[in-house]
């Protein structure tokens, strides 16, 4: 920590700055990789405690069922890092599924393009409203949540019509397997890698961090604030639609009652993954860890037997609270230094 000496500690002598730097470093490490650490710990404990847990089958089922949440959470990670929130993803997920099933009558291309176009447009419009008018993302996407669900109920005759996936090529996208894992897992993994690159290694990613860290400073530094925000919500809409389409392919039908409250699970996963709800910090690896952690907890609770699946929500709720408290404490510790 020679640097703190060369640059004379501003308010404190250098010795303290070195200790503080170490603390800050540990704090950052915890924030960025806390979910991963807990995930590993839970997996280890689970493996010793329950025979069923550490099986390939169980691991595959956790990964497969997490893949849809993961795809949505990737988009949400960008939204939250930029300082926003997107409540519409649950509805878009459902709408994406219904549109994909509907479009699958015309083949796999339409089955994919239709949900992506519509959900992308919804995201784009939300982004434009948020970025151009400065309205609160919470309100704009809440309107999106309600509106999209209404739209979906309308095209499915209040849920009476369920479109089935006829196209086998499209169904294979959701059901096909490679090395014991379904395709959506690979799609989610590739998307996660792309998002990681996008977030860490492109100007767009830097702009997202800058806007979330300080929108005012970002605009003074020449960051295209409006364009970046619009893109972030567009991306979130696209990914939610894609997840919905993949899920429809898996289920072979577009189910209208899906995705209610899903946006909250997604937000929980992202925040548990160490992304600051206030924006400016976060990572894709954290989000993936957060999603997997929620999946593992669910799997444990489902199989322990005595507990109903409702307890999964209790546990993830508790987790979320812990993480937010920890973030708060960490950022406080960092402010003092």
């Amino acid at each position, binding site marked *: 920590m020679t640097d703190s000496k060369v640059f004379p500690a501003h*308010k404190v002598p250098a010795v303290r700055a070195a200790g503080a730097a170490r603390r800050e470093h540990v704090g950052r490490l915890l924030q960025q990789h806390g979910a991963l650490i807990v995930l590993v710990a839970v997996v280890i404990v689970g493996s010793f405690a329950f025979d069923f847990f550490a099986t390939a089958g169980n691991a595959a089922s956790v990964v497969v069922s997490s893949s849809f949440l993961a795809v949505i959470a990737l988009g949400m990670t960008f939204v939250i890092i930029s300082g926003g929130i997107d409540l519409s993803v649950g509805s878009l997920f459902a709408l994406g599924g219904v549109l994909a099933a509907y479009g699958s009558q015309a083949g796999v291309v339409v089955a994919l393009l239709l949900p992506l176009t519509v959900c992308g447009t919804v995201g784009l419009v939300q982004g434009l409203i948020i970025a151009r008018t400065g309205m609160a993302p919470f309100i704009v996407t809440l309107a999106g949540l309600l509106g999209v669900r209404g739209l979906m109920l309308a095209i499915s005759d209040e849920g009476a019509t369920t479109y089935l996936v006829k196209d086998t090529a499209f169904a294979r996208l959701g059901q096909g397997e490679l090395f014991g894992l379904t395709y959506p897992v690979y799609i989610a993994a590739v998307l996660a890698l792309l998002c990681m690159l996008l977030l860490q290694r492109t*100007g767009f990613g*830097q702009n997202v961090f800058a806007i979330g*860290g300080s929108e005012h400073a970002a*605009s003074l*530094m020449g960051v295209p604030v409006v364009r970046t925000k619009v893109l972030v919500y567009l991306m979130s809409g696209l990914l939610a639609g894609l997840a919905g389409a993949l899920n429809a392919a898996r289920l072979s039908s577009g189910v209208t009652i899906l995705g209610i409250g899903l946006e909250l699970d997604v937000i929980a996963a992202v925040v548990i993954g160490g992304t600051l709800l206030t924006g400016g910090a976060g990572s894709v690896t954290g989000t993936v860890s957060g999603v997997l952690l929620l999946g593992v907890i669910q799997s444990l609770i489902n199989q322990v037997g005595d507990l109903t699946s409702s307890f999964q929500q209790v546990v993830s709720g508790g987790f979320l609270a812990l993480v937010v408290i920890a973030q708060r404490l960490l950022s406080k510790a960092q402010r003092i230094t």
Partner: protein
Amino acid sequence: MGASDEPVLEARNVTKRFPGVLALDDVSFAVRPGEVHALVGENGAGKSTLIKIFTGVHQPDGGELRYGGGPAAFATPMEAQRSGISTIYQEVNLVPMMSVARNLLLGREPRNRLGVIDATRMYGEAERALAGYGVKADVRRPLRTLGMGAQQMVALARAISIDARVVIMDEPTSSLEPREVETLFGVIRRLRDDGIAVIYVSHRLDELYQVCDRVTVLRDGRLAHNGPMAGLARLQLISLMLGRDLNEVRASGATRFSRDHDAIATGEPVIEARGLTRRHVLREVSVSVRPGEVVGLGGLLGAGRSETAKAIMGALPLDSGEVIVAGLPLRRRSTATAIRAGVSLLPEDRKAEGIIPNLSVRENIVLASLPHLARGGVVSDARIDEVVDAFIRKLRIKASSPHQKVSELSGGNQQKVLLARWLAMRPKVLLLDEPTRGIDVGAKAEVQALIDELAEEGLGVLLISSDLEELAEGSDRIIVLREGAVVGELSGADVTEEGIMASIADHSPSAPPSTTPADHPSRAEAHD
């Protein structure tokens, strides 16, 4: 020095109107390549508005903006920046949570062949760039882990590195240490030699004379003066800024402290801090203030002045030490206890720790004193109005009405609102941390006069100021800190700028830490 005749950036007869205010009225301003041009004026003179027009934040309502020899219009800050006009602001406008390197290079990160950011090269470039500014920091760490001075240097390095033809500096030195100021001046001179135009905004006259070639003075939105810096007498400059008669300024001096500070206040201290110690921060710091006395805390940035004030206020955890207010030791160390005992702190960073920008002047003033004003938990509006009106008058707060948002006031008036908030608590002791930082000359003089008045009325004042002149003229007694410990005390005729500097510079350990209590018995008493 090598300034060519063609201005690179010019405002011709520019007018800018805001609702209810004519911010700029037919103002012309021109800066040439290789020229350091001071832009000065009181708050509300139109400096910030002019700068915001140059940087694309505002558009002029009338007149013409010319850049590089032709008419120009900047719709956004980004456009201005792309054209080569860089700005560094008084408050560092970078992203605290992002790493130093990413802040420095945001928007121009080095890419590898695949078009993605090359992290290794980015860190290398950032390190090299910063080394030229005397900053050797780990560029991977978040910006906020650096001190304010280093952050300012990062902002400066960023501003200059984008091939700027014009660099605008808005009070760049307000959070720098003297050594950093020297580095900054070195950079400015280098820029000048490279033919870059610099617009330099500052309230510190010394600096203007040190680095600037020309000066433009704005007053009340109009051009008051434009000419070479050399040959313009200090008093002349002050009178141009204030729009006051030269003789009047001369009579009152540069600061507005008028009390006879040679008289030494007597009587029991209203506040006594003893042996304040926090590992690596404060070492056995003892300070006492008597009623009607202004005690200055001297020392460089990082000497522990703000920390002493915070410790007295109970806002800084201590390893040992105690605070006695009016003879009674504070039992619990918390700000609430200190406030109840009659201690108020005007914090250094009024934006972050003081004003609540979206509330009105009235609400900001009574915020802390509502419990005092309440009867049975209910506060009468009339009573509040009475208090608020009294303070607006007494502190000469310039607001269109008590209901105006505080964020719309000038820095000086915001400071007065804060002062009013704490005075409304009827404190016995007022801790003022940099009360005049970042406010214009006129408001500064008014705040200084207020400090005097308050002391006259019997308040004990602890004054922290980086402005040596202010400290010397405003204080009855000065306690000098260095590296968290008291290294000297000046009183009576010794309270001068030279005295303070000598005390700070004095490295001999024999410097009498005279306020460190030799009277251990009385300490023991207080503990009982």
